[in-house]
């Protein structure tokens, strides 16, 4: 798959983020696919920022770590990004005439100078980024007819201003002829007539609302806030509510309250907030109240690295509750899959009356992607409601926690006469009366575990991508945002003559052990790759006592990209050692 990756770097005022957005939109309009991530300096405003866009004629959902073209509007503090924007001899460099002095880097090609600022200046505009957009459009032969509308929308311009900025862009286009790039642009081979453009956080919001969520309570936190911001305003229009709570303790309990009332409820947070919710997560488990929490992970521990991606909340999500508190943990495997996985979470939470934690991360949540349209998921919140007309209510009140075969007990909702009960975090009898007795405790512990273990989760517990050619002896096993990168690593390995299969686990807990064993036994080596320091998922897998001795741990903490090349190298190393 041929791809081109363009990194655009500048200071806060230069508008590289808007430039990236607009470039992605124009590319999409031409029928290309692509993905974009952004990165910022710690400065709140006015600091350096960068947009990295990878484009291809085929769907692309990962970054390979190469930068084909580096476009600089301001060199100041460029080195801040050296972790994330790795320059090689193959990187072409274009810089604005006013970008300042290039740093001394071995691999840096001498930059081609284009006077984007001058073009803007000459028209009395400050939008040098528009000139850069024009320049890139000319090179990529993007649809110049859409330039005007894209500019005026993204930059929130008045009609008059838009006209001027459009002219700046046209200047940029014209300048291309004099400063051409020695890089062949992409041509679109696929013919499709529509596409989606969205971030994972937006897709998570969509999945939640489509599956029936009508109550959201949350406390702002990077990088989860934009999922909530997408929901805000919309949820009211479909008859629901969003409450900005005073803290995460309030947020999670508000969600529990709404859910107890029968209204599917959701909250989103990141590591520090999830930690704060821990006690009340246990309440959802014990009281069997449906609850969905989206954790958009960032670098940890503690406040850590709030704006960058890491998969290090796995342990907390799985084990971070006091007492024996079984619950479900899911992870979306791509940006569009955020919609599906969150919708599934909403469904599972209500069907199984339990807590579901969804582990997304900053990369999935905040990267924007062009992808083929997705159909509505089939997931809908669905409570096993109590049928009180037939229930034989004795002296002892409604049997809220009756020990059924499935482990799921019918739930009465306030407003239903005859179903009155008090939900409780204290251990209780089947009819919801607090009880410290051994037999009640083990009955309820068994029931709460059984309902999760016995459920038929179906095929979607994982996604697999078999090697194109040959039978693979090696499996690349991962979860969450690494899945798409792992698929790209598979391609790289293919090119190097190695066949590996890829599996991404969507249902992290409870894992369907029998099926997992069946699959894993086929491989002489299984490389478990994850983006954290201690190999949290790997250790979890090992704790399950799998029927394989072939597990290899490849854990690398954030916030740097865990690139397909790095994964491929690791697999190759393992395969060579095995052989």
């Amino acid at each position, binding site marked *: 798959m041929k791809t081109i990756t363009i990194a655009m770097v500048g200071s806060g005022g230069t508008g590289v983020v808007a430039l990236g957005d607009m470039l992605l939109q124009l590319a999409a309009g031409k029928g290309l696919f692509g993905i974009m991530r952004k990165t910022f300096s710690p400065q709140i405003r006015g600091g350096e920022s960068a947009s990295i866009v990878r484009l291809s004629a085929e769907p692309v959902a990962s970054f390979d770590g190469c930068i084909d073209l580096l476009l600089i509007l301001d060199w100041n503090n460029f080195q801040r990004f050296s972790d994330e924007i790795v320059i090689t001899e193959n990187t072409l460099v274009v810089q604005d005439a006013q970008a300042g002095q290039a740093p001394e880097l071995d691999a840096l090609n001498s930059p081609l100078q284009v006077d984007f600022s001058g073009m803007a200046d000459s028209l009395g505009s400050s939008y040098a980024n528009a000139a850069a957009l024009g320049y890139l459009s000319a090179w990529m032969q993007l649809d110049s007819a859409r330039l005007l509308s894209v500019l005026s929308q993204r930059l929130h311009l008045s009609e008059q201003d838009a006209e001027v900025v459009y002219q700046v862009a046209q200047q940029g286009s014209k300048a291309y002829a004099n400063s051409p790039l020695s890089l062949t642009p992409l041509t679109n081979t696929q013919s499709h007539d529509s596409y989606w453009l969205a971030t994972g956080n937006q897709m998570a919001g969509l999945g939640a609302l489509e599956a029936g969520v009508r109550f959201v309570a949350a406390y702002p936190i990077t990088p989860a806030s934009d999922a909530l911001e997408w929901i805000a305003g919309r949820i009211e229009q479909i008859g629901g509510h969003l409450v900005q709570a005073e803290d995460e303790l*309030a947020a999670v309990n508000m969600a529990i309250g709404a859910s107890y009332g029968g209204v599917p409820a959701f909250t989103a947070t990141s590591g520090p907030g999830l930690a704060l919710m821990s006690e009340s997560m246990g309440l959802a488990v014990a*009281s069997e109240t449906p609850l969905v929490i989206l954790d958009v992970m960032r670098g940890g521990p503690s406040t850590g690295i709030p704006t960058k991606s890491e998969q290090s909340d796995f342990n907390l999500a799985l084990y971070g509750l006091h007492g024996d508190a079984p619950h479900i943990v899911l992870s979306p495997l791509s940006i569009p899959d955020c919609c599906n996985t969150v919708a599934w979470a909403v469904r599972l939470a209500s069907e199984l009356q339990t807590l579901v934690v969804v582990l997304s991360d900053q990369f999935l949540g905040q990267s924007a992607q062009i992808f083929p349209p997705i159909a509505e998921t089939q997931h809908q919140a669905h409570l096993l409601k109590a049928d009180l007309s037939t229930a034989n209510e004795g002296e002892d009140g409604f049997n809220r926690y009756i020990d059924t075969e499935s482990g799921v007990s019918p739930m009465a909702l306030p407003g239903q*006469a005859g179903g009155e009960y008090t939900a409780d975090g204290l251990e209780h009898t089947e009819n919801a009366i607090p009880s410290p007795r051994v037999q009640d405790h083990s009955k309820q512990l068994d029931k709460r575990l059984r309902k999760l273990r016995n459920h038929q989760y179906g095929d979607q517990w994982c996604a697999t991508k078999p090697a194109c050619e040959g039978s693979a002896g090696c499996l690349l096993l991962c979860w969450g945002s690494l899945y798409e990168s792992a698929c790209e690593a598979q391609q790289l390995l293919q090119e190097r003559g190695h066949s590996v299969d890829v599996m991404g686990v969507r249902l992290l807990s409870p894992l369907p052990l029998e099926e997992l064993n069946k699959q894993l036994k086929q491989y002489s080596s299984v490389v478990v790759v994850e983006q954290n320091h201690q190999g949290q998922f790997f250790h979890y897998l090992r704790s399950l006592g799998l029927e394989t001795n072939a597990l290899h741990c490849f854990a690398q903490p954030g916030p740097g990209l865990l690139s397909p090349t790095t994964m491929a190298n690791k697999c190759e190393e393992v395969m060579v050692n095995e052989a």
Partner: protein
Amino acid sequence: MKPKQYKSGIKPIWCPGCGHYSVLNAITKAFAAEELAPENCVLVSGIGCSSRLPAYVHSYGFHGVHGRALPIATGLKVARPDLNVVALGGDGDGLSIGGNHFIHACRRNVNMVYIIMDNEVYGMTKGQTSPTTPEDWDHSKLTPHGTDVPAIQPCSLALSAGASFIARAHSGDANRIAQILIDAMHHPGFAFIHVLSQCITFCPEQSHWKKIIQVREEVTDDPQQAAQFLQGDNGFSVGVFYRNPRPVWPHPSQIDKEINLRQGFQHSI
């Protein structure tokens, strides 16, 4: 239905003589007087002797975790405005671990009632001090020299946090609690009732409360006047002190039948 039909039949774990019985009786009286359908009432509590109350009432209930009664009640009421939601709990639950939710609930003005059953002590955990404990009370082994910190004034705090209905009652007079509760349920918005509810076991000296209780008949809607009264009050006046209705939260949502959630994402070439 009679008051006693609003009892669930579960025997309270409370000590004989505990003030919380009075609150229980007041709730069943008020529900009976208002002829409320049990299935439409939800009592939400935290953890503490007081917070055990919901299970004793024939209605829906949620016995949550310590300090979080108000958020649960808020979520429930916002999601299900058709229900009659009463949050309740102890002074420890509401003013120590739950203090933040208290001030934010006062501000937010969701249409519900909140009763603090204040015995100036942690009954459930065997007698430690709470934010309302008199500063020289030295009966707790955890603070054997007293708290040395002045007691918090719940009504005063509620006022400065923006509560729109503030009242106090005493466990010695269940009828008054019931009457105030009825008023509170009729009040549109967040109604706070501070009940002095004695803990016979750890604070037997509270029996003298009944001698110093003073009924106050004046209700004001002026925050400045209320502030002045509450700053001067000795904490043993009972009655509705302040009632100043303002719009309840949230405003009803504007449903848009035409909305297509997918619209912003879908583009054609």
